[in-house]
């Protein structure tokens, strides 16, 4: 009796599992599994940097001036321009190796901290990327395209800021988590709306999240100029400073901003991994994302999964916002995000919507962004070049056929690029 009722269920599960894990099963089988998945990303990054170098050369006036003198001088100037720029990029993101070695030799703790600060600063830059990238990745896994991370981030930051300055007298070990939680809840609510609309009415989440982005911007704009405005700000749209107890603690004295948020982000990434890949709930979510019809046939609750998936995605975006105000800016103003919303889409795609992949991609973006700041100072190359690099890297990751044809690599599987299509379902 039991067996009879159990059997068809198992079969459905098997079918669903096969549908779902097409990509993963394939990744496990070949012998060279350790370096194989890294070849394409590495070549993509390399090619992106190469094209970036061409852009640096083409837009450098010194190079043109040198070419006017002689061809050799021009070539030399071109190489110098690229070397200087990428040298500054590396030094800005990892620190100056000579200085680090000297500092270690001298044993001066302050000097050591200062020498490795660029590296720590890159981790600081990567932290919001981890949260935001996870937000989009969770959405992708549930078959939802959350383009509204930016709005959820703003709402999350506003809520965290409010709890941060309005609640007073709590000990730090309660206040800070409470402010983070407020950010997650508010961001989650901002994600819940399009999730609910999608599940109940079919209203497309891409448009709804774009709309909610604008509503969020207007709302925070109003909050910062009205109810949440700092009393003596002189009309500036900025919130009061948050209480010291709500701040995410920094590990070192003032100029070094490396803070606990980075480790919170890593913990959250691990939690998401566990949730997505080790729990029934995560299995449901991934199944609904990969094959809604199969999931419905297997008796999964699509409405609930869609709503919860989008809420979780929004909550992660809200954490990104909370992290920025509680650890870095310590008060909210409109210039809170430097485009995390869109970068996060690239992150999730680059990381193949896996938590580990997102963390690695976020680190890459963090190092790039931080290094680019130094590059801007040293060789006057606008920081926007990293957006160009990101776009190039992303396109080569998404279309491996281009990389293959450039480097004459053999195709492992004809359908490798299809993995993204599966993860975003939708339209």
């Amino acid at each position, binding site marked *: 009796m039991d067996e009879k009722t159990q059997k068809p269920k198992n079969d459905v599960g098997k079918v669903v599992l096969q549908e779902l894990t097409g990509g993963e099963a394939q990744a496990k089988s070949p012998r060279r599994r350790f370096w194989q998945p890294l070849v394409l990303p590495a070549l993509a990054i390399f090619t992106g940097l190469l094209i970036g170098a061409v852009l640096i050369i083409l837009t450098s006036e010194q190079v043109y001036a040198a070419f006017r003198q002689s061809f050799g001088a021009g070539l030399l100037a071109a190489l110098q321009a690229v070397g200087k720029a990428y040298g500054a990029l590396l030094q800005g993101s990892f620190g100056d190796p000579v200085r680090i070695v000297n500092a270690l030799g001298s044993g001066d703790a302050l000097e050591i901290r200062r020498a490795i600060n660029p590296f720590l600063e890159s981790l600081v830059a990567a932290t919001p990327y981890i949260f935001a990238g996870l937000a989009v990745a969770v959405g992708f896994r549930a078959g939802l*395209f959350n383009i509204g991370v930016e709005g959820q981030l703003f709402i999350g930051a506003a809520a965290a800021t409010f709890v941060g300055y309005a609640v007073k007298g709590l000990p730090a070990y309660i206040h800070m988590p409470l402010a983070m939680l407020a950010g997650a809840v508010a961001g989650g609510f901002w994600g819940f709306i399009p999730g609910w609309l999608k599940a109940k009415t*079919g209203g*497309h989440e891409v448009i709804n999240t774009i709309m909610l982005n604008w509503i969020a911007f207007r709302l925070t704009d109003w909050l910062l100029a009205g109810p949440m405005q700092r009393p003596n700000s002189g009309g500036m749209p900025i919130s009061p400073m948050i209480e010291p107890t709500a701040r995410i603690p920094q590990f070192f004295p003032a100029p070094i901003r490396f803070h606990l948020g980075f480790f919170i982000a890593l913990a959250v990434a691990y939690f998401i991994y566990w949730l997505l890949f080790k729990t029934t709930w995560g299995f449901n979510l991934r199944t609904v994302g990969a094959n809604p019809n199969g999931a419905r046939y297997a008796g999964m609750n699509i409405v609930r999964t869609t709503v919860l998936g989008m809420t979780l995605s929004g909550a992660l975006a809200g954490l990104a916002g909370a992290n920025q105000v509680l650890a870095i800016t310590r008060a909210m103003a409109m210039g809170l995000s430097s485009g995390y919303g869109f970068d996060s889409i690239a992150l999730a795609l680059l990381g193949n919507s896996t938590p580990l992949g997102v963390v690695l991609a976020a680190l890459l973006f963090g190092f790039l962004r931080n290094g680019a700041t130094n590059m801007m100072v040293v060789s006057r190359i606008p920081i926007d070049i990293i957006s160009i690099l990101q776009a190039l890297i992303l*396109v080569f990751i*998404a279309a491996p056929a281009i990389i293959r044809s450039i480097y004459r690599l053999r195709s492992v599987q004809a359908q490798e690029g299809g993995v993204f299509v599966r993860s975003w379902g939708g339209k």
Partner: protein
Amino acid sequence: MTTVVHHRKLETVSPLWRYGMGVFFLLLAALISFVFLRSVAVGVQTRFVMTPGGITQGTLPDWVLDARTTLLILAGLIAVAGGYQLGRGFAKLTNTVLAIVMLLFVFGFLVWAAAGKSLNLAGMLGNAIQLSVPIVLGAFSGVLCERAGVVNIAIEGMMLMAAMVGALVGAVSGSMWVGLLAAVASSVLLAWVHAVLSIKYKINQIISGTVINIFATGFTSYISAKFLQVYEHLNKTAIFPRWAIPGLADIPLIGPLFFNTTLFVYLMFIILIVLQVALFSTRWGLRLRSVGEHPKAADTLGINVVRTRYMAVLLGGVVAGLGGAYFTLGSVGRFDEMMTAGKGFIGLAAMIFGNWTPLGALGAGMMFGFADTLGSKLSILGSTIPPQFMSMLPYITTMIVLAGVVGRGQAPAADGVPYEKE
């Protein structure tokens, strides 16, 4: 014959939606009668100026209304609509009625906000038309691409690129026409990249669009920071002047708004007519739509799916390029970083709101344009409602409408699906 395709599955209106809409109408009526009407004293007049500033042709005398009477009439009309919606229901006409009710409400709002003052309504409408140009052209670009089955979220990036190239080339060449041409060419180049990535390499079209957006943002900001901000003369282009069409420009109100305006507004209406006719009344349009609905069947009938999609995306690039050029060559004459400010995405929303038709996209785009104007006008009028809330209205309206009948199954069936020939 041609309307059949885009009206399928429209018949079912859920009861929740129907009653919700009725209650919404009644709430608006209540808002007018209890909030607006209360704060207006008896006998206060609202003066609407009906000629845009600086226009001498097609003038119209000012329009003076008694604020209380007007508000009462508007509240009555909206309440009747709400009552009917609750009782019988407008069924298929619900969205049309919603649009009319929103118009009445916004009009009532203006009467209230400008009570005892004077408001240049014609100037506001003219401004709204100008602001809607990039949104509507972006939406047209989307209609072209998506009707052929290619999702294009890269419109924002294409417009940004066109705006930058238009300003730069316009300034360097000294000719706005050369600037316009270069702007369109740059947008088409990005459209070609989108086409190659999504049609040839079959990568996810959303990814391809995202990549182009990120690239365009980075590239335009890079060039701007490296050159345009450093050498001011590279970022100072002539802009297209207003051209009055003889005869038509003298029609009161209509003349100043539609026949005494810039190239971009004329282009917008020309493209509207051409696109609406071409898509729904020509063989070309039927083929393009068939590729977007059922590429396999189209292929079987001998239509070249890949070529049709390439053509649609490239044409979409042309239209988006015109929309982008508006920002610099049609408006301020200089490029600023990120100056498209999400208009391409709003255009995408206008396209969906407008049900993937040029005419609908125009209507939705105009609504967004009007809301933009409203927001800026409100702060001048010194209204008690924060302008931020008024400028949220179109976004909220879009979401409400999407949640209703438009939300389901209206997109071209093969939208976003790469075509695999067997």
